[in-house]
């Protein structure tokens, strides 16, 4: 059969009708003339009219053939031979077949999904009544197992309904799941048919799951069940040129409202380089269009700033408008973010002050330089004297409406106030404890840490002086936002610190709980701060003061990013991710009568939980794009984005080496010399490319047309 590398270009074939249309348009209604000398015309008509008609039709056919051949050639047809390989299997009885179909994103490149469907359908056609089938696309691996089908027509319908997902191909996962599904079959002749997409990515060379597969295939058999035949139907594919958006990354997934969020968009070219239009939209509304020209085999990055965003969920989507390549799914990408209202931060100071004075004056200035006059500032600090935390009731009153509390140099707290703060943290609030000159570390360890049950993340040690002064650094390998900020800053902001005194903090697992983390370290390796989750909130203990008495941190460049990132991180309540990976289930705030709409239509939602809290959950999302949760009245409640997995952008065709996948399949063969594993070499062989012949045909047709026209013109001139 004939396969088209760019079938959408067949849309150009109607242009072949142009000669006919022109012929009809130019065909005038003939003028009637009464004529006497008809006998001379009759002689002409008998001889010439036939000749003219033949010539005219021949020219029409030649012109149409030339255009048609050129249009079809543009779709790059090739002759392929397809084999369902059924004859190579000796089926001794009723068949139990699991069709494991790779419906990864890359399967949609160059019409590969249609080829995969036809291969699966071809295999189904070899089955007979009474045989069992399970159709298992990659995108449904996480779905509960269903009973095998004995209705082959229903199985065929399932195959026809399969469309490319946002997933990266994963053949070992597919095969393992297929072996699991095979357990539900009853027929003795077991077949696992892997319909691959022909891309190398899915074979996951070196993946340990291949060992698990080999072990399971070599396991002893029980009962009458035969060892399963493994059939790989993999269409040979060609490398296709592609332009793709590989990433849309906002600077932060959680931002303050009305801030202009920087967004980085990565556009990649695979085998092709040209200018394309990049359209960027926020919540479906285009906000910017740019022309980008990524290198032929590389990436280029585009940086923009979003317009100020209102509180709520937002989805940034990017689209290559005129990529027109063989892999349309890679031409778009999306990411979500949430804009939250100003975070209230309560600053309780042992030494109250105004401006930069006081225990936390520099901190208040770093969080809100405009001292409350900027309505769009992300933080709303409120300074109080620590003495105002008189008791639990007063503390609750002060903590109401805040997201984080900072204790600056507070030596001791009323028991009721301390309990209120602990409740506040357990409910999701953030706590930052900053030392000061009057503190008693032993009291903190006793009353605030309480062997790990209190709010303090770690038991503090003694206050020590640094001679010479200490600097700080980001902890290597830490995934904490603080470590990322200073690791990516490109400057040694922490190294410029000069800290002359600090509270000695234990390292996680070495005096501090194992679940604590120390993203920033002093240059002697001890933590500059230590963080620990307490309930649904987090508590952080800093080793130095923020008033400049123990070092120059407040006056250094590291101050603002440090405290803003730290407070922003601990103050924000955990919320479900806005950008999801394929197969992840979205979580939304509870809402009654809500409706989830995605790229492929509406999806069911159900009540569930997320991170221990009640939430509305959707199904695993497989299609890339934007998903919107609507309220019963049609208002938008939340948005989520699903992008094609980055690995799915690899369109490298399966090579001979991968076919030997190669090692694993070879190992299977060795383990099962009886030949239970059948490698259908290609399943489909791509033969000769036809487009050069079509181009040649078009050229011959045009040359013939030119010759005929020239000869007719000569005849006319001569006569």
């Amino acid at each position, binding site marked *: 059969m004939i396969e088209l590398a760019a079938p959408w270009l067949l849309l150009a074939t109607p242009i072949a009708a142009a000669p006919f249309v022109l012929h009809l348009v130019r*065909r005038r209604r*003939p003028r009637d003339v009464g004529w*006497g000398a*008809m006998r001379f015309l009759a002689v*002409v008509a008998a001889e010439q*009219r036939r000749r003219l008609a033949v010539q005219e039709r021949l020219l029409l056919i030649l012109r149409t053939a030339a255009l048609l051949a050129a249009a079809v050639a543009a779709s790059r047809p090739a002759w392929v031979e397809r084999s369902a390989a059924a004859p190579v299997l000796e089926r001794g009885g009723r068949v139990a077949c699991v069709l494991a179909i790779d419906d990864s994103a890359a399967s949609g490149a160059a019409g590969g999904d249609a080829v995969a469907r036809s291969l699966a359908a071809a295999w189904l056609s070899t089955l007979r009544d009474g045989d069992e089938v399970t159709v298992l696309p990659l995108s449904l691996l996480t779905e509960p197992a269903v009973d095998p089908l004995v209705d082959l027509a229903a199985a065929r319908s399932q195959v026809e309904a399969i469309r490319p997902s946002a997933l990266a191909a994963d053949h070992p996962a597919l095969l393992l799941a297929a072996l699991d599904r095979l357990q539900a079959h009853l027929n003795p002749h077991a077949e696992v048919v892997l319909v691959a997409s022909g891309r190398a990515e899915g074979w996951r060379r070196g993946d340990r799951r291949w060992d698990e597969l080999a072990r399971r295939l070599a396991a002893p058999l029980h009962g009458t069940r035969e060892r399963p035949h493994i059939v790989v139907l993999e269409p040979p594919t060609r490398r296709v040129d592609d332009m793709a958006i590989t990433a849309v990354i906002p600077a932060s997934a959680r931002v303050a409202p009305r801030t202009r969020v920087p967004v980085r968009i990565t556009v990649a070219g695979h085998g092709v380089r040209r200018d394309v239009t990049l359209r960027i939209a926020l919540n479906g509304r285009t906000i910017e269009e740019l022309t980008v020209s990524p290198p032929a085999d590389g990436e280029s990055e585009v940086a923009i700033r979003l317009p100020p965003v209102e509180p709520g969920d937002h989805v940034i989507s990017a689209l290559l408008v005129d990529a027109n390549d063989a892999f349309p799914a890679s031409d778009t990408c999306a990411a979500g973010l949430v804009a939250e209202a100003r975070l209230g931060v309560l600053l309780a100071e042992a030494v109250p002050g105004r401006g930069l004075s006081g225990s936390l004056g520099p901190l208040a200035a770093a969080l809100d330089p405009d001292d409350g006059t900027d309505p769009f500032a992300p933080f709303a600090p409120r300074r109080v004297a620590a003495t105002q935390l008189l008791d639990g009731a007063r503390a609750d009153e002060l903590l109401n409406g805040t997201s984080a509390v900072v204790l600056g140099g507070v030596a001791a707290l009323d028991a009721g106030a301390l309990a209120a703060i602990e409740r506040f943290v357990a409910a999701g609030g953030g706590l930052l404890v900053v030392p000061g000159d009057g503190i008693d570390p032993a009291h903190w360890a006793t009353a605030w840490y309480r062997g790990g049950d209190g709010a303090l993340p770690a038991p503090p040690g003694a206050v020590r002086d640094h001679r010479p002064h200490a600097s700080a650094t980001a902890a290597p390998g830490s995934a904490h936002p603080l470590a990322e900020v200073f690791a990516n800053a490109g400057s040694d902001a922490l190294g410029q610190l000069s800290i002359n005194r600090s509270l000695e903090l234990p390292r996680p697992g070495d005096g501090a709980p194992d679940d604590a983390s120390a993203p920033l370290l002093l240059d002697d390796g001890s933590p500059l701060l230590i963080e620990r989750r307490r309930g649904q909130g987090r508590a952080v203990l800093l080793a130095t003061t923020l008033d400049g008495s123990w070092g120059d941190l407040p006056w250094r460049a590291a101050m603002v990013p440090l405290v803003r990132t730290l407070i922003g991180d601990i103050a924000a309540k955990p919320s479900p991710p806005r950008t999801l990976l394929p197969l992840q289930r979205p979580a939304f705030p509870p809402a009654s009568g809500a409706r989830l709409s995605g790229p492929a239509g509406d999806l069911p939602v159900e009540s569930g939980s997320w991170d221990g809290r009640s939430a509305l959950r959707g199904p695993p999302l497989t299609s890339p794009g934007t998903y919107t949760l609507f309220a019963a009245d049609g208002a938008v409640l939340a948005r989520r984005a699903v992008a094609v997995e980055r690995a799915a952008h690899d369109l490298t065709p399966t090579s001979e080496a991968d076919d030997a996948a190669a090692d694993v399949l070879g190992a299977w063969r060795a383990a099962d010399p009886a030949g239970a594993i059948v490698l259908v070499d290609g399943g489909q062989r791509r033969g000769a490319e036809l487009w050069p012949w079509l181009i040649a045909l078009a050229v011959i047709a045009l040359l013939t047309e030119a010759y005929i026209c020239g000869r007719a013109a000569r005849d006319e001139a001569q006569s």
Partner: protein
Amino acid sequence: MALLNWHEQILPRLARVSLSARLAVEGFLAGEHRSNRRGQSVEFAGHRPYLPGDDVRRIDWPLWARSDRLDVRLYEEESQLRAVIAIDASGSMGYGGSEAKIDSARTLAAGLAAVLSRHGDAVGLAVLGGSLRSYLPPSASPAHLIAVLERLQDLRAEGPGGCGEALASLAPRLPRRGLFVLITDACEDTGSLLRGLRLVCARRTDTRLWHLLHEDEGGFPFAGDVRFLGLEGEPSLALDADRVRPWYLRALAAHRAELAAGCRAARIDLRGFRADDDVALAIADALR
């Protein structure tokens, strides 16, 4: 036989046929034509007005003395030329609109008839078209000329063509050793037409073929898609005139060449006319 009164009887009728015919005859009346068919006879046939160039010895002086009219005497022997004018009235002769070939043929025939009759010759008229439609045997009487002119006046181009068959019917009825003039567009089979003319020639007649074509037929000035509707009932032909023109002209030239060769072989005087030719000059040229 009443004397022929040209100015009072013939010219008004000619005018009804064609102004050109009238002008042609008036030209002859002015004495441009010199008959080479005079003879001597004792049988008086009538008078005709004297024209400059006539032999003054033939003037009827007694008549001049009686009536002050200067006429010459005509004798029977001078009227022995019996001419038959045959007109092809097939549908194809109707081509040309206001300059239809049939009108030109009618004018030519009327002029020729008038000229011949003016010189005392007997004139007959045959109307052809697929078959012999009508035939007026030649006569020199003025009343007969009037009948000829009236027949010409009523002539319509219609019906199928084919003078050859009609000539086969007409030939036995023609006077021997006379003058036979066929005015046709010859849009028919050349062989059939020549066979008919050879039958006429067999009567030892002085046979002349006046081949009348319209300007369009000679040049084929059409362009684009044209549907040609046959005037003689042929099926219509939708053709690209630009492409067909060279082939048509080639076929027409071959036809004319074949006709000329046939006429030359049969000693038939062939003259070509165009529908818009000046009739007086055409007749003078043809009779020279």
